[in-house]
């Protein structure tokens, strides 16, 4: 398995997760704005559900991100 590719996927994946997590967070607390911007696509209930589902993957990706970075630095 290409460890470089895995590391890259984890790092970029974490970035995407963080961005979606923040947007859906605003989709809950500032739902009128987010609903308008997304043409009703990201409603408050949908934001809530996505936000809740993302917690676990976010923790896993964050852990892997830290671990892989630490491992790479240790190797160097």
């Amino acid at each position: 398995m290409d460890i470089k590719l895995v590391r890259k996927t984890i790092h970029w994946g974490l970035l995407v997760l963080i961005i979606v997590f923040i947007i859906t967070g605003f989709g809950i607390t500032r739902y009128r704005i987010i609903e308008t911007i997304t043409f009703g696509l990201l409603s408050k209930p949908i934001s809530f559900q996505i936000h809740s589902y993302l917690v676990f993957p976010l923790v896993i990706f964050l852990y892997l991100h830290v671990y892989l970075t630490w491992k790479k630095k240790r190797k160097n």
Partner: protein
Amino acid sequence: MIDFSGNDFELEEVELREYQGETLSSIYDFRENSIKGPQYVSREKYKLTVTGLVNNTYNLTYNQIIDSFHTSKRVITLFCVEGWEVKILWEGIKVEDLLEIADVKPEANTIIFYAYDGYSTSFPIEYITDNDIIMAYKMNNVTIPPERGFPFQLVAESKWGYKWIKWITSIELSDDENYRGYWESRGYSNNADLDKGFFDE
């Protein structure tokens, strides 16, 4: 020297922060999350309509409601699905008293509340009568301000915050158990019990 004897002099209402040994939240601790922002309802023009499956459809003005019904006070915490909560002393009239005047028809099983901004929510009638649910016009001993739902906010005890409808303008008695309010039709639980998730039916 200030003259306090004039008839037009009115003391400014000051909110209570403690009641019978319980510390209360402030009316400023709420987060504004209504569907169209704060609504400004005229006290003079306001009318509450009770309609639907009743033998006596009627309208009442704000003053008629305040002056004609017994009021009760309760400290109840509102839990919002967003994660915040506020413990408030609510003062209002029992919805059941309004229903008594309306003379609800036997086939009615659902009570639907409508608000000035188009918001709505519903409950089984038994929930309202069995729990002595009130429509509050005061919070922490202060008349509910427009931002918080003047003239009336439902104090839906043991239900998630989206059931605590503000700016109530009409009450409809219905036999449609499947009626879904604003958030309920968008996926939130119609039951909205606090001991369950707000997406669980």
